[in-house]
């Protein structure tokens, strides 16, 4: 059966210069985000880069990134409690906290990007259950509640025996949530770029990869900031897991585009995204495939092949690159997909005063970027203050504690 890992969790001290700096920076960005919302709310959305052609802009890219990462960040806890991988057991609590924080950040962006955010009460009381959006509303808020309960089963010793059950429920919910998020785009018959059943599975794959990347970055930062050791064994496992997830995302991306290319009607939009789209093609190949896929893949597997153990810096760099690629991927999907004009008359050239037949232009505006970063900042604040107030972070993740059968760790830079 193996030795039980008795983990001690402790709050971070909250008195270090890094804590205050992070708090101030994230607090500033959060307030700037609120200020951006106030400005857009007052002046109207014409001050953003959005238009009647590109209706969902940078805020939605940030929000989707946060929400997809949220459900993926929960994965670490699920691997531990549902799939019973003891090595990840000390990581459970931070995983749940991060999932909640990221989702709150993403939800904040979505709600504040509405044209009438003051009508959220109306949205809660009037539901059209044919709409994926309506389902997502409950999936997102339910996620926060369920992960809170899951966290409680971990933190309350008398509830520890319910951890696997809570984890299983959270796992199912998180899969539904991510599939729902992908299906927001997948069900749109109007949009050729992503009207496809593969959007749900693609988003699931993305959530695994992006969520783990965010988790790794937060774990490394938290441990380094509070002087807690991360063992090389754990780091190597996380690195290789991230590598596997990157491959899965690349696979689903390939399937998505290859099947689209095969369908003759979709050739136009596919050529746009892949070859002729200027910024979108650059983001796809350079951002998503190269920086977000191939480079971190090489970094992670080279540094962990054989008996080698990757350095924290290498893994952090790979995770950061994955997130860069994540941003590029969502930008291409969400905004690139809207830039391609709707086809009213297949095979014809069209033009009109309403920009029919034209590829729509979009320049992100400062208020939109402000809102997006504000959501990220909120997620960061939740994690920062969570780890300060309650016991989420294990005191140590050293090899001697996690891996009782020691294998000689060799640092690889």
């Amino acid at each position, binding site marked *: 059966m193996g030795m039980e890992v008795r983990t001690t969790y402790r709050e971070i001290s909250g008195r270090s210069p890094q804590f205050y700096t992070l708090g101030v920076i994230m607090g500033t960005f959060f307030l700037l985000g609120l200020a951006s919302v106030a400005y857009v709310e007052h002046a109207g959305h014409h001050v953003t880069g959005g238009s009647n052609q590109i209706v969902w802009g940078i805020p939605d890219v940030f929000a989707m990134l946060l929400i997809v990462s949220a459900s993926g960040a929960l994965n670490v806890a699920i691997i531990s409690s549902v799939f019973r991988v003891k090595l990840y057991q000390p990581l459970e609590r931070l995983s749940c906290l991060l999932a909640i924080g990221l989702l709150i950040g993403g939800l904040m962006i979505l709600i504040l990007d509405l044209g009438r955010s003051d009508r*959220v009460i109306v949205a809660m009381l009037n539901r059209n259950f044919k709409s994926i959006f309506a389902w997502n509303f409950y999936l997102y808020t339910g996620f926060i509640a369920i992960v809170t309960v899951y966290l409680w089963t971990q933190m309350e010793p008398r509830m520890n025996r319910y951890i696997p059950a809570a984890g299983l429920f959270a796992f199912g919910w998180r899969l539904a949530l991510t599939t729902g998020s992908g299906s927001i785009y997948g069900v749109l018959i109007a949009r050729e770029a992503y009207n496809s059943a593969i959007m749900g599975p693609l988003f699931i794959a993305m959530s695994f990869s992006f969520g783990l990347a965010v988790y790794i970055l937060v774990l490394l930062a938290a441990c380094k900031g509070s002087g807690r050791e991360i063992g090389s064994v754990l780091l190597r496992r996380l690195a290789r897991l991230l590598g596997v997830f990157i491959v899965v995302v690349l696979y689903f991306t390939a399937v998505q585009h290859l099947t689209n290319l095969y369908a003759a009607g979709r050739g136009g939009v596919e050529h746009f995204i892949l070859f002729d789209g200027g910024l979108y093609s650059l983001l796809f190949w350079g951002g998503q495939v190269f920086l977000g896929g191939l480079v971190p893949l090489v970094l992670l597997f080279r540094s962990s092949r054989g008996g080698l153990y990757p350095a924290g810096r290498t893994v952090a760099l790979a995770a950061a690159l994955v997130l860069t690629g994540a941003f590029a991927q969502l930008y291409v999907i969400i905004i690139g997909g809207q830039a391609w004009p709707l086809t009213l008359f297949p095979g014809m050239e069209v033009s009109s005063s309403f920009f029919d037949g034209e590829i729509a232009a979009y320049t992100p505006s400062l208020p939109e970027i402000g809102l997006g970063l504000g959501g990220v900042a909120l997620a960061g604040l939740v994690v920062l203050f969570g780890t300060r107030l309650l016991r989420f972070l294990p005191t140590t993740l050293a090899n001697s504690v996690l891996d009782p059968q020691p294998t000689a760790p060799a640092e690889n830079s």
Partner: protein
Amino acid sequence: MSGNTNKLDAPTGFDPVRRKFLSAVTAATGVALAPGVMLYGITRPSPATANVANEAVANAARWGMLIDVGRCADGCDACVSACVEENGLEGHGRPATDAQWIRKVEIRNPSTGRRQSLPVMCQHCAEPPCVDVCPTGASFKRADGIVLVDKHRCIGCRYCMMACPYKARSFIAEDLEDQKPHAPRGKGTVEGCTLCVHRVDAGRQPACVEACGDSGGGAMLFGDLQDPQSEISRRVASHATRQIRADLGLDPGVRYQNL
């Protein structure tokens, strides 16, 4: 070990701070409630008189349009001007975000070189994707087939704009004032062609159809697609007409002839 020590260990019995706080809160609540209570107190309800109003629309009719593209002249935009005038859609000099409920689309066939122009507006589909995706049910189809946005419920999420294959909807991106009373529209909500529902309910024709008949090419015909005796039904039964993107299976109420 995990319990928190109670830092605010107040002695049992009299706590002057707490008493002052409670009194202040009660006083503040009283002062805040006073005007509303006074207003409530000076009124006295009595039963309302009977409601004399129209009947609700039923699905006895399905409103639709037939547009003869052969009669639609290239430079003419009488329908567009009429819609702007009727619904108060004055532009703000920002074409990317200004609302357009109807627009003239110029088509050119790249293999033959043939050109045509036609008006495109909300197609008032029988199976509208905008209605399916609206999270609050603000986008809805009336019993008589007109697809509308209930702006009381619209939260401005723009999902319907993503879902519409005809790009029929616009998002209002600035403050508006002096709207036309029969066409309320406001910042932060989504809007689109209403088939001039205020006119239709009064037994008249949409503004674009009227203007096309008056000063355009007489290309637009409005009527009840479910009434076999109406002119539009007789025309679609006897002439070849088609819908835009009929392959999507949405069954739009707007049909085009000679396209």
